């Protein structure tokens, strides 16, 4: 009986948290901003979420593309199909690796920073001071961060994809002497704009929303102690990674499973 009770309690707690976080999301995303400097707030967040993540996105995109080119080449030459390296690199990047790896990196780089920042604001009672001043912290602090993450991740994923395909091109064409025409031609013949590129962008939009939602919610509900900030940051990275991979499976099944 106790086991059933604890299961029930866990379910109710989970539902309560989930409901609260959903209300939190809607309140901060669709609350009408009442500040004149909306664009200033937003562009500051674009900077700290997007521009500061750019270096890690560029580096890892480049290396992921090069590794994909190298691994794909060694496997494909066994079947005498090294010409298909272009479509292998492009399809796996645009459909899967770009959105997923980009979102994981984003969760590690920007999500954890968001959580720590907001949790520290809460710990040092800055959010309460805002409330005392009659400023809604959801709109002043949370909303710009949510929107920034939501908008920036798809852009970062696009950059990741482009850089990674360039890395794959360098390895396959410049280093391993695959014909450049075959590389781009096979790629263009097999990659479809609406099926592959747009679906990849949709994936990255979903991941962007999920990651920033988790990050700001964990920061906002963190236990206001030094330890609490640490836990909240860890939870952001762990939950984001799990949710990204889970959502990726569902989205892939919906987008490409029917073919």
């Amino acid at each position: 009986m106790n086991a059933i009770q604890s299961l029930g309690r866990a379910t109710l707690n989970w539902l309560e948290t989930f409901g609260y976080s959903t209300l939190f999301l809607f309140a901060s995303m669709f609350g009408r901003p009442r500040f004149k400097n909306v664009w200033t707030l937003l562009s500051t967040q674009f900077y700290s979420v997007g521009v500061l993540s750019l270096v890690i996105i560029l580096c890892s995109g480049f290396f992921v593309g090069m590794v994909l080119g190298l691994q794909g080449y060694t496997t494909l030459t066994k079947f005498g199909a090294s010409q298909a390296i272009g479509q292998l690199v492009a399809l796996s990047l645009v459909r899967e690796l770009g959105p997923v790896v980009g979102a994981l990196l984003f969760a590690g780089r920007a999500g954890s920073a968001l959580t720590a920042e907001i949790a520290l604001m809460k710990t040092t009672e800055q959010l309460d001071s805002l409330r005392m001043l009659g400023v809604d912290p959801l709109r002043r602090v949370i909303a710009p961060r949510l929107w920034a993450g939501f908008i920036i991740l798809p852009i970062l994923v696009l950059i990741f994809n482009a850089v990674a395909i360039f890395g794959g091109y360098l390895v396959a064409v410049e280093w391993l002497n695959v014909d450049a025409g075959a590389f781009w031609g096979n790629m263009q013949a097999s990659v479809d704009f609406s099926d592959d590129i747009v679906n990849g962008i949709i994936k990255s939009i979903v991941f962007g929303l999920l990651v920033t939602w988790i990050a700001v919610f964990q920061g906002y509900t963190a236990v206001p102690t030094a330890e609490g900030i640490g836990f909240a940051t860890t939870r952001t990275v762990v939950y984001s990674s799990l949710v990204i991979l889970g959502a990726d499976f569902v989205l892939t099944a919906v987008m490409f499973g029917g073919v």
Partner: protein
Amino acid sequence: MLNRRMIEVTVGFLMLLGIVSFVVLAFQVSGLRTVYSSEKGYQVTAYFDNIGGLKTKARVTVAGVSVGKVMSIQLDPKTYQAKVVLFLDSDLVVPDDSAASILTAGLLGDNYISLEPGAEETSLKNGDIIQETHSAMILERLIGQFLFNKDK
């Protein structure tokens, strides 16, 4: 804290990079031919005895150049033939006695349709039916024929 100008410049740079990446992905990687070619063009129908592994969106070629794609594949319930609807670019004019055959790109590649232009003066129009078709080569059937002929 960085100054305002610096932040705005770097954000603008990021956005520019994003737009450039999008354009690169759209044109260099996906070719973006299917999007606008789907707006203007015409449909013709061809009946095949066997389409092998042909799929929708497979290429339609003349002399190896892509000129359209396969729109839909259905089974005709009366004749038990495959009804394949082809979508051809509007600037392509082919004689209406052209032949359509299903070929394979490479040994293990995808199936595609090759149109061999005929000699008639009149050309194919929207809704026309291609009269002369050649079915896909089925490897197993070829091997079977080969073995059968060898015995004789």
